[in-house]
């Protein structure tokens, strides 16, 4: 058993690259909306931050420098890495300080991830100011590697009349609604642009890696006239593609979609977000049920090309067996709290030995959705509202529906340390809707 586990996570000796990345967070001014410039925060002067392209097996060192006027961290959302490299609130980087994030990209983790700040109480603010970027991890044996890709980072923001990012005082009328719903903005950005145009050729298949980087807005994606082939989630490809008309992407979730160019040459369509009622009735925005256009999909005038064949089998995802589970953790979500408590860095909420497999049962007593994120370890959702998950996938966020529940199974592999779990509506997280899982190194447990 130990040997099998070890080989699953073993690093191929030959394929390793040493990757050095320099990343600097700093304030800057940029034109984001017409007629104004806005003071924002950027990574390496870019909004969103540069997309990091990594391969399984890479040994990564990120030399991070904080030129912001306040402490920050860089959290590598969804990556399986050492505690010290997680960029959680336990390792703040002060203004003017530097920090090296050192980690290895584990085999089997190819997928779409993202990075963003995670300082306690200030995550929502710093992400609202513009700090986030995409991570693409590739596998050498990616079955879709011949298909052209688009990274689509969706976010939203709100601006004052003079172009500044609108961050109302917490007890103002809008501030209280933001605390309740999470802060939503009326301007939706795709890769830092409002309604950008993507081009596709008739017949062509594209792989879209979609990241919801919004603090609170949930996207129900639909491309009118097109089916979407859902091929992957937070932690990479499924075993088999699933055909859909639309898909809900909650906060911090990622989806990989194959889009087939079934439109006519020269035609256009828009990727839309359809209404999705995640809200409590008291603070549901009046515009909640208006569909929103996110980007224009422009067909080039050339005649259609023959479509590529999509493999029916994408990969094998190991089963996390519920019979191996040694504990069930019940997490009850009430508003702004988990199990009736707010985040306390000095408290450990869940303690477990390294390598343990456990089931988490997350129950949402509130009349709004809460996307629940666990750091450090990808999990497999077992069921939502008691309905069995239709297929296996790796996740690090599960959207727990209003007055509903979700169960997932997780193995605390490889890395001990303290790992956050929290609601990924950033206003809720910053308010303290967060807890700590401590994974303790154990004597190697005796197994047959």
């Amino acid at each position, binding site marked *: 058993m130990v040997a099998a586990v070890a080989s699953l996570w073993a690093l191929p000796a030959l394929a390793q690259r040493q990757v050095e990345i320099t990343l600097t967070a700093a304030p800057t001014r940029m034109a984001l909306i017409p007629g104004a410039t806005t003071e924002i925060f950027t990574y390496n002067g870019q909004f969103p931050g540069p997309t990091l392209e990594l391969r399984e097996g890479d040994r990564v060192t990120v030399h991070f420098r904080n030129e912001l006027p306040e402490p920050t961290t860089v959290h590598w959302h969804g990556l399986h890495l050492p505690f010290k490299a997680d960029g959680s609130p336990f390792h703040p980087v002060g203004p003017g300080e530097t920090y090296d994030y050192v980690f290895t990209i584990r085999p089997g983790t190819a997928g779409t991830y993202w990075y963003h700040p995670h300082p306690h109480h200030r995550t929502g603010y710093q992400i609202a100011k513009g700090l986030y970027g995409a991570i693409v991890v590739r596998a050498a044996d990616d079955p879709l590697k011949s298909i052209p890709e688009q990274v689509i980072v969706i976010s939203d923001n709100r601006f004052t009349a003079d172009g500044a990012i609108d961050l109302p005082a*917490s*007890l103002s*009328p809008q501030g*209280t*609604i933001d*605390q*309740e719903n999470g802060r939503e903005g009326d301007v939706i950005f795709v890769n830092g642009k409002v309604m950008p145009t993507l081009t596709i050729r008739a017949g062509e298949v594209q792989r879209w890696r979609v990241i919801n980087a919004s603090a609170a807005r949930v996207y129900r994606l639909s491309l009118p006239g097109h089916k979407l082939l859902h091929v992957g989630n937070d932690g990479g490809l499924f075993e088999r593609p699933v055909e859909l008309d639309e898909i809900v992407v909650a906060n911090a979730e990622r989806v990989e979609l194959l889009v087939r160019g079934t439109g006519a040459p020269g035609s256009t369509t828009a990727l839309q977000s359809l209404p999705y009622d995640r809200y*409590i*009735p*008291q*603070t549901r925005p009046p515009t909640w049920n208006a569909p929103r256009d996110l980007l224009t999909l422009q067909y080039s005038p050339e005649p259609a090309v023959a479509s590529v064949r999509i493999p029916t089998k994408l990969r094998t995802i190991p089963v996390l067996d519920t019979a191996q589970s040694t504990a069930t953790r019940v997490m*009850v979500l*009430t*508003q*702004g*709290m988990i199990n*009736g408590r*707010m985040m306390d860095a000095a408290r450990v909420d869940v303690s477990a030995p390294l390598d343990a497999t456990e089931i988490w049962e997350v*129950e949402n*007593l*509130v*009349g709004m959705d809460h996307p629940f994120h666990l750091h450090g370890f990808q999990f497999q959702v077992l069921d939502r509202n008691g309905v069995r998950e239709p297929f296996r996938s790796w996740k690090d966020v599960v959207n727990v529906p*209003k*007055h509903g*529940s979700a169960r997932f199974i997780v193995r605390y592999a490889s890395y001990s340390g303290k790992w956050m779990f929290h609601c990924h509506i950033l206003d809720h997280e910053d308010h303290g809707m967060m807890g700590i899982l401590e994974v303790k190194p154990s004597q190697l447990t005796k197994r047959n």
Partner: protein
Amino acid sequence: MGSSRIAGRFAGLLIVLSGVAVVELSDGRWTTDEASASEMLDPSVMRGRALTMHHGCGDCHGGMHPAGAGWLAGWRDSTQTFIMGPFKTYPRNLTPDNMTGMGRFTERQIFNALRYGLRPGETPDVEITSNTPGQGNFPANPKYLAPPMPWPAFRHMPDQELRDIAAYLKRGLKPVSNRVMDSEGPPDFWRSAYTVDKIGPYPAAAYPTAQEVAGH
């Protein structure tokens, strides 16, 4: 308290087997009897039952009386819907079901709902020592129960009676799974409807007020 009274009266030994009281009488005979089993019930729960009956909790929350179908199990049909201006509100399931009722809330959270009008799912489980938002654990941004819940009246009941109601809801009812829609309301969760101006102070103003005479 129940068991010490029984022990005192019978000067014997009391043990409990599967909830049935087995009592050794002073003459050495063993007996089980309904009367002693009933005396072991928590008197707080029993007082809470009486309070929910004579405060009419079932009129809105269902069942009308403890033997009635859906007793305190919350909204079942549109006859229980309240129209409060532009909003609809729905009486909640008060039974101790974990997911749809009071099961995940503590008796203290229910007490805080009855005394301060604070929604239990949205208020920390702490002792509140002030009526002023932001002070003494009273939330800075309080979220109140939807009208017509008469908590501005119920809050004047003694502490113990409110605790009794909480004890009955948590320990005296069978859990019923009945998911009730969230009540609608203004974005301030009725804060502007529940100012001291409108509902008076707690504790109440000293007697007699301008509207009252000192009765003898």
